């Protein structure tokens, strides 16, 4: 199928490396993957650095990890070769490769990814705004709550 249209299948790989791995070390790893991709006549579509994040659970006594995300195309067993390289590196805690499409369109994917990220950012901002609103509301209530018990107490005294 891909031979007819000339398009290669696309894959995405997320890699978690040790957080103490230096930038140079990370660069070396990225270069190594880039080398594999070119060797398999593929193309790097997108690379993202999510930075150091706290892991939901500790992996190999590490509670933090550096996330890297690559989208690429390639023929044959490119995934196998990349994963073999990742396994060789002792700084890689974990990785996950997902098969995207048989005939991958890099430009369309990039566009879609940007849209998704924009939407996620917008949601995040809305959530932040709502939270601030709630906080402001709570601050607004506090003085009234303090004044409310005072009023009935005064009337009771008056009744007695």
């Amino acid at each position, binding site marked *: 199928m891909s031979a007819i249209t000339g398009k290669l299948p696309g894959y995405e790989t997320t890699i978690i490396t040790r957080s103490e791995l230096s930038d140079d070390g990370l660069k070396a790893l990225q270069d190594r993957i880039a080398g594999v991709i070119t060797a398999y006549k593929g193309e790097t579509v997108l690379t993202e650095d999510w930075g150091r994040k706290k892991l939901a659970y500790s992996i190999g006594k590490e509670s933090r990890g550096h*996330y890297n995300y690559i989208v690429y195309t390639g023929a044959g067993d490119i995934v196998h070769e990349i994963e073999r390289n990742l396994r060789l590196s002792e700084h890689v805690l974990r990785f996950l490769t997902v098969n995207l499409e048989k005939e991958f369109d890099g430009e369309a994917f990039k566009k879609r990814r940007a849209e998704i990220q924009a939407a996620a950012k917008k949601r995040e901002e809305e959530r932040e705004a709502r939270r601030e609103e709630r906080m402001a509301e709570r601050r607004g209530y506090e003085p009234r709550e303090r004044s409310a018990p005072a009023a009935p107490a005064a009337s009771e005294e008056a009744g007695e």
Partner: protein
Amino acid sequence: MAMITTTKSESSAPAGKQDRQDREERMEKDGDGRRGGFHRKKVCRFCSDNEFVLDYKDARMMQSFVTEHGKIVPRRISGNCAMHQRKLTTAVKRARNLALVGYVSMGA
């Protein structure tokens, strides 16, 4: 009370029906009756909102479909449609693998 006695005198069958209707009305007013209670129709958030995309990389999105113990929220509670629930389970499992969502806790 007076009304009930009059309906009873007419015939027994419609009286029972009337009673039941009364009870249902009362329950609806109270709002705690299981039977005939108000049910809001749940809609799948992925179907209704095009910008809300299912993605295993978005941990924030996943957190609303995972309990604080890390369990996937069932469809009957979240209101997802069958297709999206199926996709969500794979997404959550992928995110667990990447330590974005916990296996036993909700995660960071």
